[in-house]
């Protein structure tokens, strides 16, 4: 069965690749203006049912070359304007000129997403729950890393750098993410721990961030147990753009004097700041590039939590023909950080814990230097109006070196050096406007050397877990109202214990759009996650006794969701969008850390059969004048069915609200408020050796912001955690207290 599926996918990919042939071609060009004739830059002009499309430039002009001769339906659209459609005939060697005059309408919020189906589609019609973060949302909140951004997504909760979507994850010591991270379609997980490398992402050049909720292994394979996060980077502007942003701020002293007295810097303001430089441009019609560099320094609000970070990224794309693109994204980040691992109890939470017992000296802090480099080439070709294919490569390397007492990095022999590499080929074929096939092949491998993976007292070198997969998806529209998506993916992992783990992950999505403003959806999907090398091989006594577990099995999930999305047009070019969903996900063999008496040590073990179920409701208000509001509430009932009690570290209630109000054409103010109920259960093994690690409270975080824009200058003032409310996002670490930031951005 599994071999048949693999051969079918291979045949489909191969068949499509050899189908590329030359044909008669013409050119379609023109302009898009508003009703008064003013040019509209950034409008989309697409040939329906094909992959041909373009965005208008600053003069409202567009050009589509190499269009195969034939009859097409052309649509011009722009947010805030009514889409306009024409039927045209393209003839061989001819240039056809069109002029679109769009009528301004109530803002419809036509978000376009790619993650749910591996291709572009309207968010309203997406067959899965997807939340989108825009660049504007990131800038308004001075967001510097992906984990900060995800705190504003309904149903998402963070424990340190561990992401939980709708209760999929608790706190797992930052090892083994149950959410897959993609950058421009490329999986990006740390090679040794499968952690999410938040610091390696160029957030200043993000087009949008998409969060798919629910199992997604049928499209993306291992890791997509609880959801998928995709960061999409920007395209290149028609005119060169440069921006410089600088920000600075400080953490307020902790509210309680008893805590401040335990640290010599407890009464002082603790500064942080940074700067970002970006430049993006095109070089003629064929070449484009952007580059960005960021420096950040942070004194930290806890003893031994200082950080210095440097990050740079560049993307270059060459288009030899309008239908082809060769792109290369390179990202590099390095930082030195005092990692505050756990506190010294609730009487002394500003200092790391210390345990000098049993001839050992365990400390709740460690210092290290980390360097991460990612190289992601891709080639996209659209040989005909019916099909396209993309080949992507990936190399991600991470090194972690502990710092000695003088602050100098020690050898990688004392740390970790890891590589993750692979590639994939994906093709999309649309034999008709109502039917699309997507298929692909992927392969990945790892090589890691870590002092945490011991074998006979020596660091173990693991050329671990090569993976190959094939996937196929059918997207079929029935009578225009109903959309059916069927998908299947086969993954095989080769473990270095000479075992093979294979999974077949199906999915079925159904969406019904009875009106343009209303959609109903049902989705079913499976997910799985092969344990990371860190979970299988960590064998170390440096912080606490941990032993390897070579018999660890993959985690599995099966998810169901039904949802309704509705959009209303209100007065003054304002839209209100509501989404209500009910979800159920069953998990098997969840991996957790336990103290295992027979091993006399901690160990990652397959323990839990679990179920999360609940509801999510979001309400979004947007107007073309800049007014934006959001309320998102998620109820999660997370049961550990093995222990017959709540899953550890899951909040039952999550609430996110946000409001942005333009006071004048220059001034805008806003606020965000987050609430998470205290977890019903905390896992007690961590509290065995960390004092008060079992203590949690509800989370109430209020962020305030104001901005003024004057010509090319934008000033932002932010006050985060304005209530100076003290809480924990993960056990035994106090979350940031109130901190204020001033940010200045100049663009030209």
């Amino acid at each position, binding site marked *: 069965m599994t071999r048949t599926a693999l051969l079918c996918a291979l045949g489909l990919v191969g068949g499509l690749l050899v189908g590329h042939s030359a044909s008669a071609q013409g050119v379609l060009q023109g302009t898009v203006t508003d009703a008064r004739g003013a040019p509209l830059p950034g409008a989309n002009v697409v040939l329906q049912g094909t992959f041909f499309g373009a965005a208008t430039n600053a003069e409202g002009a567009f050009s589509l070359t190499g269009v195969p001769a034939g009859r097409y339906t052309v649509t011009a659209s722009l947010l805030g304007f009514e889409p306009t459609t024409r039927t045209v005939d393209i003839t061989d060697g001819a240039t056809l000129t069109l002029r679109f005059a769009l009528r301004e309408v109530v803002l419809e919020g036509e978000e376009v997403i790619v993650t749910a189906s591996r291709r572009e589609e309207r968010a309203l019609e997406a067959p899965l729950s997807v939340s989108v973060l825009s660049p504007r949302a990131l800038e308004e909140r001075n967001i510097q890393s992906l984990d900060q951004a995800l705190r504003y997504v309904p149903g998402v909760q963070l424990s340190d750098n561990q992401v939980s979507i709708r209760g999929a994850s608790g706190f797992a010591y930052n090892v083994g993410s149950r959410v897959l991270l993609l950058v421009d379609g490329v999986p990006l997980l740390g090679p040794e721990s499968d952690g999410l490398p938040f610091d390696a992402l160029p957030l200043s050049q993000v087009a949008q961030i998409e969060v798919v909720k629910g199992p997604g292994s049928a499209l993306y394979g291992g890791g997509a147990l609880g959801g998928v996060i995709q960061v999409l980077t920007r395209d290149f502007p028609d005119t060169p753009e440069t921006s410089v942003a600088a920000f600075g701020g400080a953490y307020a002293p902790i509210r309680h004097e008893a*805590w401040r007295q335990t640290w010599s810097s407890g009464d002082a303001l603790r500064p942080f700041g940074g700067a970002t430089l970006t430049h993006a441009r095109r070089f003629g019609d064929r070449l484009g590039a952007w580059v960005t560099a960021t420096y950040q320094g942070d004194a930290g609000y806890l003893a031994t939590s200082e950080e210095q970070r440097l990050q740079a990224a560049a993307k270059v794309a060459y288009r030899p023909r309008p239908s082809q693109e060769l792109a290369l994204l390179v990202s590099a980040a390095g930082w030195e950080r005092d990692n505050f691992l756990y506190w010294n109890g609730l009487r002394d939470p500003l200092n790391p814990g210390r345990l000098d017992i049993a001839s050992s000296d365990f400390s709740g802090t460690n210092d290290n230097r980390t360097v991460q480099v990612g190289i992601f080439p891709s080639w996209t070709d659209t040989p005909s109006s019916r099909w396209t294919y993309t080949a992507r490569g990936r190399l991600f390397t991470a090194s972690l070196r502990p710092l000695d007492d003088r602050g100098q990095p020690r050898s990688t022999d004392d740390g970790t050096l890891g590589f993750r590499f692979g590639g994939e080929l994906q093709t999309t074929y649309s034999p008709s406007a109502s039917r699309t096939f997507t298929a692909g092949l992927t392969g990945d491998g790892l090589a890691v050397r870590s002092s945490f993976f011991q074998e006979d007292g020596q660091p173990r070198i693991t050329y671990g877990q090569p993976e190959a997969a094939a996937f196929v998806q059918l997207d079929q529209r029935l009578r225009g109202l109903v959309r059916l998506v069927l998908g299947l993916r086969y993954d095989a992992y080769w473990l270095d214990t000479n075992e093979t783990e294979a999974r077949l992950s199906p999915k079925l999505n159904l969406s019904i759009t009875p009106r343009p403003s209303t959609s109903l959806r049902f989705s079913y999907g499976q997910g799985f996650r092969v344990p990371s090398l860190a979970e299988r091989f960590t064998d170390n006594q440096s912080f606490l006794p941990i032993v390897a577990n070579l018999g660890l099995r993959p985690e599995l999930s099966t998810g169901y969701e039904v949802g309704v999305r509705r959009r209303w047009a209100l007065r003054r070019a304002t839209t209100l969008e509501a989404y209500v969903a009910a979800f159920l996900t069953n998990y098997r063999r969840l991996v957790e850390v336990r103290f295992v008496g027979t091993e006399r040590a901690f160990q990652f073990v397959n323990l839990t059969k679990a179920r999360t179920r609940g509801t999510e409701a979001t309400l979004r208000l947007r107007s073309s004048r800049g007014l934006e509001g959001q309320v998102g509430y998620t109820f999660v009932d997370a049961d550990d069915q093995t222990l017959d009690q709540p899953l550890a570290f899951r909040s039952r209630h999550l609430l996110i*609200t946000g409001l942005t109000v333009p006071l004048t054409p220059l001034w805008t103010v806003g606020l965000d408020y987050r609430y998470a109920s205290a977890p019903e259960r905390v896992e007690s093994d961590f509290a065995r*050796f960390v004092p008060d690690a079992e203590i949690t409270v509800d989370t109430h975080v209020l962020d305030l912001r104001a901005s003024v824009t004057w010509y090319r200058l934008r000033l932002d003032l932010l006050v985060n955690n304005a*209530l100076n*409310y*003290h*809480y924990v996002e993960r056990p035994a670490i106090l979350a940031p207290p109130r901190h204020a930031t001033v940010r200045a951005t100049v663009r030209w």
Partner: protein
Amino acid sequence: MPRLLGSLLGLALLITGPGCDAGLAPPDANAFGAIRGVVTYGPLEAWPPADSLQDLRFVAMRFIPRDTSDFLQLNRLVFSPGLDRNVAQDTFLIADVPTGVYVYSGVAQQYSRDWFAWRPLGLYTDTDGLFEVQSAETTVVQLTVNFRSLPPFPPGSTPRP
């Protein structure tokens, strides 16, 4: 616009009101006391060799351990700084001890570098081995270690020679 802002401010105050309680706070200082102890060792010539004295401490537990792996419940026990070796008597003071009843206490020896290589040398036996630490008070305990007659471990097992 002022009306809208007023409404929004009111809404913001309504939803953020619960956040004004400040969240986590230092524990009540009255929840802690102290333990002062005196340990008498004998006979002097029977002190264990240095290589089997990796660590030596007074440990007070809120539970009766089943085996040494139970020691890894540091949130349910308190221990003193390292005690002196090869002496006839030593004293210790443990501050910031959570109030409550401690049911199994004594001087413990780590006899090798293994995390779990611990054994008791002498137990607190007055008042059936129980004592209570009360708020802002110092509880005084006295123990005797007889190297010729070590207590059984785990509790209830055959006494060791």
